[in-house]
């Protein structure tokens, strides 16, 4: 086992540990660290979101290191690269020839140009190919539910034994299997990638990865690079072993530094010990023609990204102008609490799925095309699946780019994601005259009140819109299924780019006060008819 494998293993383990910490909600860990190391994710978000955040520091360090050390990020740190490489070890076949994909290798620059082209228009395409966004989704949206499913099965198998021993701690342990939309995309994408990786080593990294392309631009001639001494017999062993085909086929002495990921395989396997990675120039060094795209092609790729983004802006479901407080969004599109106004939100959101993975109630779900195709895979709250706890800020805590603002716990309570609406024609109390009031029972705010209605023996619920945060408890618990008799509409949602939610909401006349903290004086309730208490005859 080489030194590099150990470093890779540690990095992948740390990446997974941090993802686990995000799921568990352990405070204090920089759970999004690896996402913030992704060069293309950060650079594209810097342009599309027009922001420079301290959170981007890890990627800046990667950028700064590349002209010195070359693409060590790709070979040692990137969890995507490591995952692909590890899985390659498991392939059931052995292939020896490794085509150089000379022309195809340039494709990654096109992908990069496409992403950056969109960024200039404030549209984020980074999610289509950012390695960290993709690998986070792979582990978060696909592997995590899979493991939960296996864990659940395991617990069920153990249960007879546990029951026999009255081992309560384990007997009542249950695993909730999270269910995420778009997981089929993740599966299909990675299946294709794994097959390609099985056929050609580092296929993704050298032909498609825009982060690799970006780093390649910085590693045309890194300080630390490959040198070949007199001892070289041109046996060609290194040419065949190089995973990125960075060594010229006709001349093993020269290599493409921008393609080289500094895995040091050539140094390790050279029978003559003639290959050495070191700092500084070498007399005999020759540089072959680079694989890089011509400027014209690069600009063309950028133009396509730009125009696609422009088309995205004309999508009827896309954001219009600068989102402002009270703007009506697409029906059913409830964004996570504290999300920036829609346009800024989409410019910043990299669709890594970290918030979706970490959401403790799994109310957050990635969407398909509900917000237009520029909103693909962005998160929304789906009250049918769960509710949004007003005391929880997990999604904002794990968001790598601040698309969801991390508010103070106090300010968080004042976030209005939408408004609950009662559909009287479906409501058990209103329509069927049956005692229910579950919505009132579960509302964490004081937004649902009962009242008595002429000719109805049971109390009926009523939503006070100014007290409703759109958290979705009522919709989730409503006994009318599958389409609840009370649903949350994005109407009235407040989304701020800056400033205090509490102040804004109070100025708008909202009274978002939790039941458990009756700190804010509420306007007088309308009294029920005298002599009536709900549920009594």
């Amino acid at each position, binding site marked *: 086992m080489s030194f590099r494998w150990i470093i890779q293993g540690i990095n992948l383990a740390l990446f997974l540990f941090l993802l686990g910490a995000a799921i568990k909600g352990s405070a204090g860990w920089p759970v999004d660290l690896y996402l913030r190391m992704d060069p293309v994710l950060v650079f594209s978000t810097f342009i599309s979101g027009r922001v420079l955040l301290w959170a981007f520091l890890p990627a800046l360090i990667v950028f700064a290191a590349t002209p010195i050390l070359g693409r060590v990020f790709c070979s040692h740190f990137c969890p995507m690269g490591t995952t692909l490489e590890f899985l390659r070890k498991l392939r059931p076949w052995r292939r020896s020839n490794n085509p150089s994909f000379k022309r195809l290798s340039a494709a990654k620059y096109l992908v990069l140009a496409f992403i950056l082209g969109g960024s200039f228009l404030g549209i984020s395409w980074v999610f289509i190919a950012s390695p960290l966004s993709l690998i986070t989704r792979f582990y978060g949206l696909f592997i995590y539910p899979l493991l939960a499913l296996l864990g659940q099965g395991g617990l069920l198998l153990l249960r007879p034994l546990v029951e026999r021993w009255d081992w*309560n701690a384990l007997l009542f342990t249950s695993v909730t299997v999270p269910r995420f939309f778009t997981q089929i995309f993740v599966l299909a994408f990675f299946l294709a990638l794994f097959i390609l990786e099985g056929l050609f080593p580092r296929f993704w990294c050298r032909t498609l990865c825009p982060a690799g392309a970006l780093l390649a631009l910085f590693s045309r001639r890194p300080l630390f690079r490959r040198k070949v001494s007199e001892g070289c017999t041109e046996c060609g062993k290194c040419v065949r072993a190089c995973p990125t085909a960075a060594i010229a086929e006709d001349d093993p002495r020269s290599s493409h530094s921008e393609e080289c990921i500094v895995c040091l395989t050539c140094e390790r396997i050279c029978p003559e010990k003639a290959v050495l990675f070191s700092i500084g120039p070498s007399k005999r060094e020759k540089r072959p023609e680079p694989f890089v795209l011509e400027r014209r092609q690069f600009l063309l790729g950028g133009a396509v990204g730009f125009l696609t983004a422009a088309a995205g802006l004309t999508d009827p479901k896309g954001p219009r102008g600068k989102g402002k407080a009270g703007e009506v969004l697409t029906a059913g599109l409830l964004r996570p609490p504290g999300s920036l106004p829609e346009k800024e939100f989409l410019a910043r959101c990299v669709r890594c799925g970290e918030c979706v993975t970490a959401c403790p109630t799994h109310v957050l779900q990635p969407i398909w095309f509900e917000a237009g195709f520029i909103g693909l895979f962005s998160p929304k709250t789906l009250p049918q699946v769960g509710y949004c706890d007003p005391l929880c800020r997990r999604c904002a805590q794990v968001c790598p780019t601040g698309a969801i603002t991390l508010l103070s716990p106090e300010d968080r309570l004042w976030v209005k994601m939408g408004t609950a609406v009662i559909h009287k024609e479906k409501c058990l109390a209103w329509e069927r005259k*049956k005692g229910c009031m*579950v919505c009132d029972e579960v509302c964490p705010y004081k937004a649902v009140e009962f009242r008595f209605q002429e000719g109805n023996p049971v109390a009926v619920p009523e939503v006070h819109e100014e007290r409703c945060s759109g958290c979705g408890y009522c919709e989730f618990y409503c006994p009318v299924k599958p389409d609840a008799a009370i649903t949350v509409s994005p109407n009235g949602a407040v989304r701020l780019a800056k400033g205090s939610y509490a102040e804004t909401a109070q100025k708008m006349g909202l009274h978002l006060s939790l039941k458990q903290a009756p700190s804010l004086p509420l306007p007088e309730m309308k009294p029920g008819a005298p002599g009536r208490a709900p549920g009594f005859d």
Partner: protein
Amino acid sequence: MTKMDMNRRDFLKVQLAGAVSAFLAPGLLLTGRAAAQSAPPDLAVVTGSPGPATRAAVDLLGGIKQFVRPGQRVVIKPNMSFSTPPERASNTHPEVVRELVILCQEAGASSILVVDHTLHRPENCLENSGIRAACNAVVKNCVQAVNDPSLFSEVKIPQGRRMNSTEVMKAVLQSDVLIAAPVAKSHSSTGVSLSMKGMMGLVYDRRTMHFKDIHTCVVDLCTVLKAQLTVIDATRVLSTGGPGGPGTVLPGRMVIASRDMVAADAYTVAQFEWYEQKFRPAQVAHIRQAHERGLGRMDIENLKIKKITV
């Protein structure tokens, strides 16, 4: 299910034996005065702080040994469905539940479980209700939220009028003794939520019960889930805004215990004001129906009630 039947049969036997001895005892063994003292009341009402009042109320009914025999498996069903602190009165007071756990332990129960199918997130409910901390200190891991569908199994309700079957916690089906330990609180669809309504915390699908007329469904449920001992925590009473609150919390300062769920519930309804009004037990549909269907007695004026202060 067979086990459940057996338990119920056992329970009936015990009750029958009790009734026979109560009938025979005065004439055969004891003087009239002694009999009056020894025959336990139908309702025990104890004013005092939560823990001691609980113990005293159970003692008035003849002591915990009347209900729990050595080696038996006990399930205690408190209210701990809301992530709220004890003073909100939407959950049973932790000290009431703890005292019951201690009593069962003293009686030699082989297994003691404190369970509820929580509405809010289990972790938060167990933590904020204070019940886990209070009871787990007595019996390790005895407090559990039971929300996973695999922990429930189907039970037929032969006497059901609106429900023919439902999924009940396996832990309850495998137990010998069920103790209802609800808090006294109002409920926006069933008037009050006491021991009978509390049985809904032992079933998986409560959603459909709302569809099928919740009062009748609660009674249907109580035909199969009969607590042998009911201890109502009325140390605080959530008079308005129930079941979750916040609402007016009355200082009830008492614990009401009975072998009869209906009687305990009926007494609690009559004892306190709900939404600033007095109600008769018959005004709560599920209590009235339970009485009519012979599950227990709501005519508290005809029952033997023993009240003390500790």
